[in-house]
């Protein structure tokens, strides 16, 4: 019996995914780098719901101070006392001064305060008063864009 033996022709459809993998890995590396830097200094808080300023994206803050609704002051993921905060700010100011190599034009400390909107201003005022005493001239208050 002669069986019909048809040689099935398998069509070769090659999909070149080399470029796709390259782009994929580039994206992964990008998100790995950016996600890491953001989480360290920003505590999980309910920020005041304000639209903020319509300026170009700001530079990275020199010092980020988080104030929770219970009055805890958090810097770099650690709760600090007011004395420690004073020391940290002093170090930052000295670092900026050293970096300016003794010139008169010392750039200001870029201070970002992230305060929980449900907290009272007594804690915020305490921190701001300290900054004033130490000669910090400007600060930025972080807000959450309302949706």
């Amino acid at each position, binding site marked *: 019996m002669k069986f019909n033996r048809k040689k099935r022709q398998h069509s070769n459809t090659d999909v070149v*995914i080399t470029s796709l*993998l390259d782009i*994929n*890995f580039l*994206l*992964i590396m990008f*998100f*790995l780098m*950016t*996600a890491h830097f*953001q989480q360290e200094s*920003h505590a999980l808080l309910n*920020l*005041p*719901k*304000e*639209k*903020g*300023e319509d300026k170009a994206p*700001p530079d990275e803050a020199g010092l980020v101070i988080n*104030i929770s609704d219970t009055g805890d002051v958090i810097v770099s993921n650690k709760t600090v006392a007011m004395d420690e905060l004073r020391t940290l700010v002093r170090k930052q100011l000295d670092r900026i001064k050293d970096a300016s190599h003794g010139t008169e034009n010392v750039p200001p400390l870029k201070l*970002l305060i992230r*305060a*929980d*909107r*449900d*907290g*009272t*201003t*007594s804690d*915020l*005022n*305490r921190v*701001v*008063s300290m*900054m*004033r*005493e130490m*000669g*910090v*001239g*400007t*600060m*930025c*208050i*972080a*807000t*959450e*864009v309302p949706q």
Partner: protein
Amino acid sequence: MRLRKTASKRRYDRITINLASMIDVSFLLLFYFLVASMLGEEEKRLSTGLQTQGANSASAAGDFQTQVIEVRMIDNQPAYKVGERVCRDRACLAGALEPLPKAQGAFVKVYDTVGVGFAVAAVQIARDAGFEQVTYVPAK
């Protein structure tokens, strides 16, 4: 004469690497970071001045005075006070700031007992009203 086999007849052993799992893991990682970065709320900033001790006070006598917005509790409720006018909401404060001269900026004087959200709103409203220089002053 026995000649060597030509190159086309040499057997090459194929080494195959199965990349299917690696591609799956890499797409999962990409998806994870995409989602994680999108979950964060968009943050903006409000820049304010701090009246440092010893600096020239803008409240010194001059042709134009700095406007002062007090944020405090009045009758056990948070309120904004501009001169003699007391405001309880944003619209009222915006209306109170509108006719004022903006050249010398504004001081937002915040007392201890109000909420942070309420105080920051005063800074935002002053900025929206056209005050270029807004200074946050903790009240004692």
